[in-house]
């Protein structure tokens, strides 16, 4: 029953090691998976896209006229401003199969831009230009939701994307 201190410590050391190694291998393996999916699948997070004076948003060429612009066949750009408690534009129409690029900024407090199930999830900060992009294949109506608390009527701040059947 009674074993020497030397022997006991060695045994435990192996047990400890038996857990330490997988404890390193699991996060490293996950990081590799993360790198592969992030870069392989071409998922982009918003980065540093420049700034805009929140008091003079309309002076910036991107936000002079908020709206939807077709920049190439099947490629649309949404130039969007967020303000309490609305998006401009608040209704966006694109044909099915389009890639939509969102450029967004806020005129007042922090807002958010969330289109569920389409990887559009970005913070809209006053002073910063946010970018997000997604592909819309299936015709239908999708909500655009402000997902950052922005005051007493935050829950009313929403818009929609209407993806229309492609006319042949």
């Amino acid at each position, binding site marked *: 029953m009674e074993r020497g201190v030397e022997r*006991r*410590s060695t045994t*435990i050391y192996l047990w*400890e090691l038996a*857990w330490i190694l*997988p*404890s*390193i291998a*699991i*996060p*490293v393996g*996950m*990081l590799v998976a*993360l790198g592969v*999916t*992030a870069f392989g*699948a071409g*998922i*982009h*997070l*918003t*980065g*540093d*896209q420049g*700034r805009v004076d*929140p*008091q003079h948003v309309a002076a910036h060429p991107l936000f002079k006229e908020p709206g939807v612009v077709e920049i190439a066949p099947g490629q649309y750009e949404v130039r969007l401003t967020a303000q*309490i408690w609305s998006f401009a534009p608040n209704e966006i129409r694109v044909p099915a199969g389009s890639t939509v690029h969102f450029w967004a900024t806020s005129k*007042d*407090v*922090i807002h958010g831009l*969330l*289109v*569920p*199930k389409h*990887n559009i*999830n*970005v*913070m*809209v*900060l*006053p*002073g*910063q230009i*946010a*970018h997000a992009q997604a592909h819309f294949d299936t015709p239908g109506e999708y*909500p655009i*939701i*402000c*997902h*950052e*608390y*922005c*005051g*007493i009527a*935050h*829950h*009313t*701040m*929403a818009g929609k994307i209407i993806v229309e059947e492609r006319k042949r």
Partner: protein
Amino acid sequence: MTRSEERLAAAYVFVALVALFGGVTTGLFQALEYAGVEVYPKLDPVIRSHYHSLTYHGVLNVLVWTTFFICGLLPFLAARSFGQPLASIRLAWGTFWLMVAGLVVTAIPLAANAATVMFTFYPPLKAHWAFYLGLTAVVVGTWLVTLNLALTWRVWRAQNREARTPLAAFMSLVTFAMWSIASAGLAAEMLFLVIPWSLGLTAGADPLLARTLFWFSGHPIVYFWLLPAYISWETLVPRQAGGRLFSDPLARTSFILFLVLSTPLGFHHQYTDPGIHQGWKLVHAFLTFAVFFPSLLTFFTVVASLESGARARGGKGWITWFGKLPWGDPSLAAQVLAMILFAGGGIGGLINASFNMNLIVHNTAYIVGHLHLTVGTAVTLTFMGITYWLVPYLAGRPLWSRGLALAQVWLWFGGMVIFSPTLHELGLRGMPRRTAIGHAAYLQSDWKALLPLVGVGGVILFISAMLYFVNLVLTATVGRGPAPAMLAFAEATSGPEYAPAFLDRWRPWIALAVALIVVAYAPTVLRLATMTSFAVPGMRVW
């Protein structure tokens, strides 16, 4: 351990419990709102809106309950573990009153609906200046706790030159050292941006810089909450389970790694923020996965320690030993159930931290589900378990009802098993967090089916909390019987004598922690701080 130190711990725990009471009560209102029950009109003018209630809920639970409980518990455990009193009991009481004063100053604008800005208080939402000033005083209080612990350690070290710092004291020191480094971001946000701005001295506080400084402290604050739970799981629970701590050196190693790695990873809360380069976000993603390593070490140490207890009690088999734990002890049952749900919290946390998957869950109800497994269960249910021995000990009376305590603990577990997965699923279906969903303009049909479950889970959690308070109040007032003895710290199978001396040195580890922070944060913070800032006027829009 002096009587004054016990009273100090009791004072902190009392304030923490009052905060928790307010926190769970407002939590009930939110859960009911989600389920479509109109509650707020009846609560006016005490609670003015869902967002007023939600700000209470966040501030009281994650800022006050946690911080006050930890500032009470850790010096108490450290002093016992050192076997000597705190370096300065006067400093300790001064700290307590400073923190209480800060809390009162925070509470006034909060109650007056002049600070409905959530516990994250992102500018340009602008609360009354007293809100920020009071919270800053609470943070300064936590630094004074660090100072007192460090001074106590020096006194102990002068008399014990060769020995390893006793484990519970060591872990408490690491927790407060980590937090004192990490809270620099919050302090800088308060002192340089938010307080001058709220007083009208500056025109604007840059929203991105403010967020960045907030999350500098905002992720490590999670470890400030969790490490005290780990201290209980590793230094007390093994003995409560009838076993031994598996490995003292492994526990120390994991804490040193938390000291080094807890802070330089806050951008994983800002993956979706414009104005921060993708490359730096990726660096923080890597460091977040690095901190998973000490978390797994902790997991292993804790489970192995529980297993030693269960086997000593006759447990057999690979899994079935689990049933042989002393489940009749509510303190142990609470903490083991907290651990079980925390496994889900850990896995969910990895999903949040994953650069790409974060796009699906960021700012959705998924995060709310996650936070209720971590701070809402791993931390809160563990702290409840601790109070089941601590409050009777401090009150000098036995726990009023063990059966009620067991029912409470299982109700919390059951309520959370309904509440949290439902919120996770709602988040995956695109439901935003921090939103009066019952009144949302865009309520989706695939959310409606699940929302009543949020209400059911929330009601069960509320009932559990009320049973908890009833039991503690009756323990402190009418409990009869002999005063319970203080819990003893667990012995370790592989004891401190196997811990290498370099684990007991402070300067290299703190230097390494600071160096990593500089690498991870300096380029971005300097860039943001030196840009000409726009005037972003503050707004009160609630």
